[in-house]
């Protein structure tokens, strides 16, 4: 029998029993759709987190005050070593490192902003001119913080887009004097709206010079020091230099933690990748179940069509022809199921993206290929047994069952 004839015969046989065909196609498509949607969710979570981390900046090295060992919090550490504050001078010393392109100290606190009788609570970030480029923020109006001595903060502020809107409405904010805490500051710039970022919403942020922020919050310590390495390859070397410099400055004590954005990213990437894989594995179980259902349906088909198989044998069909016809039917059921499932899955992922626009729920290619492949493979593997059974039927016995 020719291939096209085999396929047509299998197609007619499948469409000849619409109920069981629909059910097995449905089972297979649910399996594939589950793989596509669940991996889209898992990979979406991974992309979301990775995207958020990437938006912090590129090639970032972050210094945190205090030592956090790999063993978690150790009460002994808390007693024996008092972490030394991270100061503006610490940050300044890092500027001389050859691997560091930009360095920005960061002091954070909350305060109130007051303009024209309107009062609002805001988050205040004290930093320097380089903070904005390091964090990949963009200036919508005006300019960033001025380049100046880090210890001498001029009375200026850069405000977030939402604050500008709430405090100034349709009026221009640039050049206006606002009160932040007990200081009067001149607004020099407005940040472009970016929406929700990881941990810090720039739309509701006020950026002021770092020494001003420290004075405002009456503290000498920094929340973070952010360093942008020259390149991706320079990150490990620069990290070591940062550690060495700070250790030297802190009298040989390793009382800071240096993390790289890369490491954090890699960890999240790995973690969420594994999660996606696990979810895909669970979804794949439904594919195996669908495969068994296809087998069941094909076994029923063989029983149902015993008379027909006898007839085909009488008309000169070889065992191979009959095997191929039934195998083609099983393959067709799972292929159509896989296709329908793929479309359903993509539709589901699309719906997810519509409802949660910030969540990039795209199924990864490997999951789509693996899902479709598994569906086809299980359909074929589970189709072999019924096909062999059909081919082995005794023609005389088979013909009697009409």
């Amino acid at each position: 029998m020719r291939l096209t004839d085999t396929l047509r015969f299998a197609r007619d046989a499948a469409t000849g029993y619409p109920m069981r065909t629909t059910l097995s196609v449905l089972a297979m498509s649910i399996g594939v759709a589950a793989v596509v949607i669940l991996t889209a969710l898992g990979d979406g979570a991974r992309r979301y987190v990775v995207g958020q981390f990437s938006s912090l900046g590129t090639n970032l090295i972050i210094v945190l005050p205090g030592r956090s060992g790999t063993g978690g919090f150790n009460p002994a550490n808390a007693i024996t070593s008092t972490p030394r504050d991270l100061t503006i001078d610490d940050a300044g010393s890092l500027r001389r490192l050859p691997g560091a392109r930009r360095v920005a100290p960061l002091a954070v606190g909350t305060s109130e902003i007051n303009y024209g009788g309107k009062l609002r609570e805001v988050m205040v970030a004290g930093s320097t001119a380089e903070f904005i480029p390091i964090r990949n923020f963009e200036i919508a109006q005006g300019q960033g913080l001025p380049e100046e001595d880090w210890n001498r903060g001029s009375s200026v502020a850069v405000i977030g887009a939402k604050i500008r809107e709430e405090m100034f409405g349709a009026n221009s904010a640039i050049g206006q004097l606002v009160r932040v805490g007990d200081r009067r500051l001149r607004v020099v710039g407005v940040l472009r709206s970016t929406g929700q970022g990881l941990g810090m919403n720039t739309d509701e942020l006020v950026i002021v010079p770092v020494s001003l922020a420290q004075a405002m919050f009456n503290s000498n310590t920094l929340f973070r020091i952010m360093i942008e390495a020259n390149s991706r390859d320079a990150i490990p070397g620069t990290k070591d230099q940062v550690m060495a410099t700070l250790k030297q400055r802190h009298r040989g004590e390793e009382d800071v933690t240096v993390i790289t954005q890369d490491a954090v990213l890699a960890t999240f990437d790995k973690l969420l990748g594994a999660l996606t894989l696990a979810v895909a594995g669970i979804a794949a179980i439904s594919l195996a179940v669908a495969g068994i259902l296809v087998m069941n349906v094909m076994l029923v088909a063989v029983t149902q069509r015993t008379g027909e198989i006898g007839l085909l044998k009488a008309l000169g069909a070889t065992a191979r022809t009959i095997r191929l016809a039934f195998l083609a039917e099983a393959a067709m059921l799972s292929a159509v199921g896989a296709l329908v499932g793929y479309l359903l899955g993509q539709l589901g992922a699309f719906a997810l993206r519509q409802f949660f626009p910030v969540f990039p729920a795209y199924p990864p290619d490997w999951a789509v290929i693996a899902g479709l492949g598994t569906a086809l493979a299980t359909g074929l593997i589970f189709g072999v047994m019924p096909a062999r059974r059909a081919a082995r039927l005794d023609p005389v016995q088979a013909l009697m069952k009409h």
Partner: protein
Amino acid sequence: MALIELSGIERRFLLGDTTVHALAGLNLQIEAGEYVAVMGPSGSGKSTLLNLLGLLDRPNEGTYKLEGRDVTTLSPDEQATVRSTRIGFVFQSFHLVPRLTAAENIALPMTLAGIPAAERNKRVAQALKDFGLENRADHKPDQLSGGQRQRVAIARATIMQPALILADEPTGNLDRHTGEEVVNLLEALNAKGVTLIVVTHDQGMGARARRQLVMEDGRLKADSRTPPPLQGEGRGGDGFPPADKPIPLPTSPLKGEE
């Protein structure tokens, strides 16, 4: 050379503990172009014989030569090829594939044999015309009458131009009139040279065949064709003198003893 040559055919079935001899020590020769009716009561082995002749079944013993070739030793696939090219089946219950149209049913043996679609369509068109089914080509079997169904089945049986047609009660599911039509159709095929073997219960139909075989308990009880006479005044296989040699009657009245 005979078309069919059966010698010493045994076919046994195991039913529970007992062995049933469906065919026992069967010897039979059928020449090409013959029209043979196989008759006998149920369980006499008619169907087993037909299955055997159609290569659907294998004998436990004995040889079956089809066109001079021993077909009992062929592999299942080789037998399938022989069925495909040399043998056509007509069944009592038609055995049409319900989801296929009349034309597709007729084309089925060619489809299975891998004949290209163009050739198939040509032959099917011719067959539809020959069997008066032109207007029924796209009908499914359940849209056809019994007679039409059997005509489709016969068209299917002949589409590969076989040497032998095996018909198992071809009129069994038909009324008298349509049965008559179907028999005429089969006989017309036979007239063109196709060997026709019909299994039937119907005495009338059996009588129309040129040769009648009567089966009983797996044996050939009667064969209307006289085997070739032995040399001289030998006796025929059935224990009777040859028909062309009248039994000599006494020419004079018997005399009493003196």
